[in-house]
């Protein structure tokens, strides 16, 4: 779809170019029980138009919770605000948020409907943020459009519009998810470790596709990753989360020439703790260069 930014619904930048502002966002799970956990602790964050933010942090840091709050899966605690175009959408339903937010999940199965065809999945995605009525879902024009958005993936999906999505591989499904999340141009794209379940080669392909789509559509993006190399390589801003807080926020200038060990130092300085998460270190092999 060759649409340009000016035609995008809901992408009207407010004065300071903030796409989304999180204000005093806190999220407590199971309040009042012994399982009580403060997954997000008073987060304040401005997401600026065309930012590509990478988010790292150990397991349980609150990364997924942050994305869920932005996507409206659940609201923040009372007092927390999500401001889009000057309007607080914190208490809008999840489907209400979908107009602003497209999302690719960690599990390819979450982002696609297995028992429906590729064309049907894309038809569902093309109606993002619109009222679904009794118009025919799969028309000739739409099929044309679906082919045009699938061709750049280079996976041959454009010739398999009537194939059930359940018959696709994980990588193909994730690539389809990416198209579905971006094709109707939401203001913000959320990626939650979206290559974590894929084999290294497929992960690399999906990451390349991500980079392509994001730069072509000038998508404002938040990408959660477990991989420090990736977090440094991608995007123009890096957030590090720990125990529900954003403990490091690096802009483009601050990130240049930064290495993984610099990040570990930054973590230890900001959190006052030893860096012990093996999984982050182990997964710091770069899937973009690993063949």
């Amino acid at each position, binding site marked *: 779809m060759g649409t340009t930014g000016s035609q995008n619904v809901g992408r009207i930048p407010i004065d300071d170019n903030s796409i989304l502002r999180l204000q005093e966002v806190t999220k407590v799970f199971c309040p009042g029980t012994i399982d009580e956990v403060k997954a997000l602790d008073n987060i304040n964050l401005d997401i600026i138009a065309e930012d590509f933010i990478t988010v790292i942090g150990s397991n349980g840091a609150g990364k997924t919770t942050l994305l869920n709050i932005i*996507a409206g899966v659940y609201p923040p605690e009372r007092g927390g605000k999500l401001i889009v175009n000057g309007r607080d959408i914190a208490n809008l*339903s*999840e*489907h*209400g948020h*979908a*107009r602003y937010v497209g*999302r690719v*999940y960690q599990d390819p*199965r*979450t*982002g*696609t*409907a*297995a*028992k*429906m065809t590729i064309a*049907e*999945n894309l*038809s*569902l*995605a093309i*109606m*993002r*943020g*619109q009222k*679904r*009525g*009794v*118009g*025919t*879902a*799969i028309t000739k024009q739409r099929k044309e459009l679906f082919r045009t958005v699938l061709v750049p993936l280079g996976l041959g999906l454009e010739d398999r519009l009537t194939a059930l999505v359940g018959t696709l591989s994980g990588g193909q499904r994730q690539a389809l998810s990416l198209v*579905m999340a971006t094709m109707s141009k939401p203001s913000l794209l959320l990626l939650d470790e979206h290559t974590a379940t894929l084999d290294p080669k497929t992960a690399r392909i999906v990451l390349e596709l991500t980079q392509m789509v994001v730069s072509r559509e000038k998508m404002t993006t938040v990408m959660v990753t477990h991989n420090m190399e990736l977090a440094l390589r991608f995007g123009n801003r890096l957030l590090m989360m720990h125990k529900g807080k954003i403990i490091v926020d690096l802009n483009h200038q601050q990130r240049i020439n930064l290495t993984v060990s610099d990040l570990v130092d930054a973590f230890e300085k900001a959190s006052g703790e030893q860096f012990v998460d093996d999984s982050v270190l182990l997964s710091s092999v770069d899937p973009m260069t690993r063949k």
Partner: protein
Amino acid sequence: MDIFSNLFPISLYEGLAYGLVAIGVYITFRVLSFPDLTVDGSFPLGGAVVSVLIINGVDPWVGTFTAFLAGMCAGLVTSLLNTALRINALLAGILMMVGLYSVNLMIMGRANIPLLREVTVFDEAAGLFGTDTSTTFSIIFMAALIIIVLAILNWLLRTDIGLALRATGDNEQMVRGLGGNTNLTTILGVSMSNGLVALAGAMIAQNQGFADIGMGIGMIVMGLASVIIGEGIFRPRGITGILLAVVGGAFAYRLFLGIALRLGLPPTDLKLVTAVLVVVVLAIPYIRKRLRHEWVPPAARM
């Protein structure tokens, strides 16, 4: 006399009439993944509403349509219990089934309403074509009704809202993430389903000449049996194929029951036979996998 005389046309008629129930059950169980047991209450609801209206002099067409609307309302309440009050789908259906028993008795005022001397939609429709109400006419009339219902569903399930409805049963999380209101699609699907089931109840009450408080017992299992048999025999692909297969399944099921009855099975055993049939069909895939030493996860509880 041949004990199998008339078996085929009667099964055909019943298959078409109960086919409406099967379609309703298909919409909830298969399309929405919403195991809705309201059916046992909404089927007699349809019979109760149309009977009471007819004996009070209301036009049978209006009565039949009102029965359909009453079923929609029952489905609306079930889906609201689930979406607005977060009550588990299975439990919401059971609560409605139990509650509707009293509601149906209230509507009817007694346990049975005979319609033998009343003019029904079958008589009205036969009158329009200048014929008598015969088995053949009942078959044609029901077939026409089924064709209309199937045509509407076949169209609806291919629209944007229909796609959202189907996807709700497949991956609800995805639909919400794409901006679809899954509460709305659930309400739409469950209401439609129960409307069709009540319509079936209304048609059957008028054809058999009475409405009875107990006419809905086991209806959910019969509907499910039809759906499973239809899927098993016809192995359909695509919306049109599936809808036709479900009606075909209802016919095959009634034919099977008809044969069993004429071979001397006491009618009171029918429900047990049906229940066993469903158990067998549901267990076959698991047993097959076990024989191939495949691992099968435990069945869901809720």
